[in-house]
């Protein structure tokens, strides 16, 4: 059950020139749940389909349990896959849907029955075994799709946005289901999604893709705290991080960052931890600040104008522009419900300077 999925320098180029996946290197460790995440069109589904054998690999190698599978048809790769729209066999009962792969492998009937019953019990499908897919709800169909994958006891699990077709509440419920099942089965799993919340809550590690290129691979904490470039920083976290174009100025012995009339001096240890900042003093820089890092006690104050205020009950979401330039960049801030702010009025909020992120103004790489 424990094994690995390895992608080595995998590239996919479509006829016509489009490069969907560019030199991807990835290894899913035994029992690991690795989430491949990125915006639409970033190549994550193409990468998954190459591992499944549903898409030809232009160059590179794919190994499952150190067995090279790059040119093998799907049936010879010992994998199981859960699709976005379930892909159930509409003309077969739930039981037959789950048993199909085992029948193709010519497993003895008793063994098939055992596995199907076991998986059905694990997923709460035991009462539905004789129904047809059209008689099931979306969540039930998704479970059947998972059951079909589980009974195969494959060397690797692949999942292609399985929760996208479910409504929000069901999605949260199924997230837990999938993790629970995966822990029990303990096979390496490659999970594709465009939803960064899913990625952060489910993944042991997260791989972020953009335009076919791997941006960063790391644990959820790593990609949140130490994004390797502006794209990752903006992609992870909801609401997104605020990214502002600013200039780095000298402030006595240290540095300060200035944008649109606001000026924030930087803490000394932040500057010393980032040698790249000193190099860029006097020039442009991209500054990132997460909405949740506003309003902390002890932070540096800035004067802002409150363009809009939304109350979510538990907290306030404020849309702020710097006081000096009301047509300047709009920043999103998540603030405590007690904060005294009025829509359309100026205000003063604090900014946690220890939580500022810096990126090169041109390349976007972290500084």
């Amino acid at each position, binding site marked *: 059950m424990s094994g690995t999925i390895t992608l080595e320098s995998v590239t996919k180029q479509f006829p016509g020139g489009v490069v969907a996946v560019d030199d991807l290197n990835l290894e899913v460790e035994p029992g690991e749940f690795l989430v491949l995440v990125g915006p639409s069109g970033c190549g994550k589904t193409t990468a998954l389909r190459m591992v499944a054998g549903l898409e030809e690999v232009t160059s590179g190698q794919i190994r499952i349990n150190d067995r090279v599978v790059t040119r093998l048809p*799907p049936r010879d790769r010992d994998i*199981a896959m859960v699709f*976005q*729209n*379930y*892909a*159930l066999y*509409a003309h077969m009962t739930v039981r037959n849907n789950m048993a199909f*792969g085992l029948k*193709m492998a010519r497993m003895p009937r008793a063994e098939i029955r055992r596995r199907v019953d076991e998986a059905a019990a694990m997923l709460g499908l035991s009462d539905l075994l004789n129904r047809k897919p059209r008689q099931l709800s979306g969540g039930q169909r998704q479970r059947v799709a998972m059951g079909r994958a589980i009974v195969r006891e494959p060397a690797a699990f692949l999942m292609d946005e399985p929760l996208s077709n479910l409504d929000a509440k069901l999605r949260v419920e199924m997230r837990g289901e999938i993790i629970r099942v995966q822990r029990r089965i303990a096979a390496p799993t490659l999970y594709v999604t465009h939803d960064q919340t899913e990625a952060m809550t489910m993944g042991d590690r997260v791989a972020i893709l953009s335009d076919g290129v791997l941006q960063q691979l790391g644990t959820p904490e790593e990609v949140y705290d130490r994004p390797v470039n502006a794209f990752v920083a903006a992609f992870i976290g909801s609401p997104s991080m605020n990214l502002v174009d600013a200039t780095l100025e000298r402030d006595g012995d240290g540095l300060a960052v200035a944008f649109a009339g606001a000026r924030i001096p930087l803490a000394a240890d932040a500057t010393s931890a980032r040698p790249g900042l000193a190099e860029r003093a006097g020039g442009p820089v991209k500054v990132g600040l997460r909405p949740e890092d506003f309003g902390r006690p002890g932070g540096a104050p800035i004067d802002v104008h409150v363009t809009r205020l939304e109350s979510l009950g538990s907290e306030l979401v404020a849309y702020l522009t710097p006081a000096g330039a009301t047509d300047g960049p709009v920043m999103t801030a998540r603030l405590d419900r007690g904060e005294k702010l009025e829509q359309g009025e100026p205000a003063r909020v604090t900014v946690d300077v220890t939580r500022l992120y810096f990126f090169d103004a041109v390349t976007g790489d972290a500084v």
Partner: protein
Amino acid sequence: MRLLKLIAIVLIVAWSIGPIVLGITTSISTQREVNSIPTHWVPQSPTLGAYRALLNGSTGQVSGGTVVQGGDFVHAMTNSAVIALGAAALTLIVSTMAAYALGRLRFRLSGGVLALLIGTLVIPIFVVVIGLFQVMANSHLIDTKRGLILVFVATQSPLATWLLYTQVREMPHEPEEAALIDGCRRWQAFVRVVVPQMSSGIAAVAAIIVLSVWGEFLIPLLLTTTMNAKPVTVLITEYVGKYTTNYPIVAAAGVLALIPPAILALVLNKRITGMLAGSS
């Protein structure tokens, strides 16, 4: 406005069924009644004599008039059935495979093959018929049921393939992929998953083929000579010539000949209209 619409609906129904009803009443009238002047619409003394003559194949006087040659009619109906069903079955196999190959398997020249099959749709059958006669004669397939079936497979496949091809392209492709992952070879996935997925389209196309082939006239007229393979459409025109004054017999033959297609059309009405309207 309501009234106008009601009148229109009644007219539509009358227009559609009228001649059929007329045929039925004629078929149960006696020859004398039909030939009297003025003629009787509703038979005063209805009789099933015409049907008995046709179906029993008895030779002899019928409905007070001409002598009917028996046995042939039932044979002709059987021929029509065998040919229509045979052609439908064979065409479906051929077209489903072709539609799948063109719609799902990307292979070299698939575009060319598709153009070839669709292009054939424009070719009117009559320019093919004369050359076809010679091909069939050379292969000793004239006057055989299997010869006719082969011809109809060739004439029906282009449309059937196109109709099924459009369906294959609109169907979700994930179940087939799931089958490939579950251990199927391509052809196994085709048989076990794709074909069941296409079942509604296949049924509609089957109905259309059976209806078209049952109603074929020109091709069987030219390619059959004896009762070996003669379908009921050809036999009826012979009856029209032979029994010019025996209306009931001809009408009964017509009614019997229309029962199978009528039943098929009524039963599969929704599927057929769906497919025809959709493809326009």
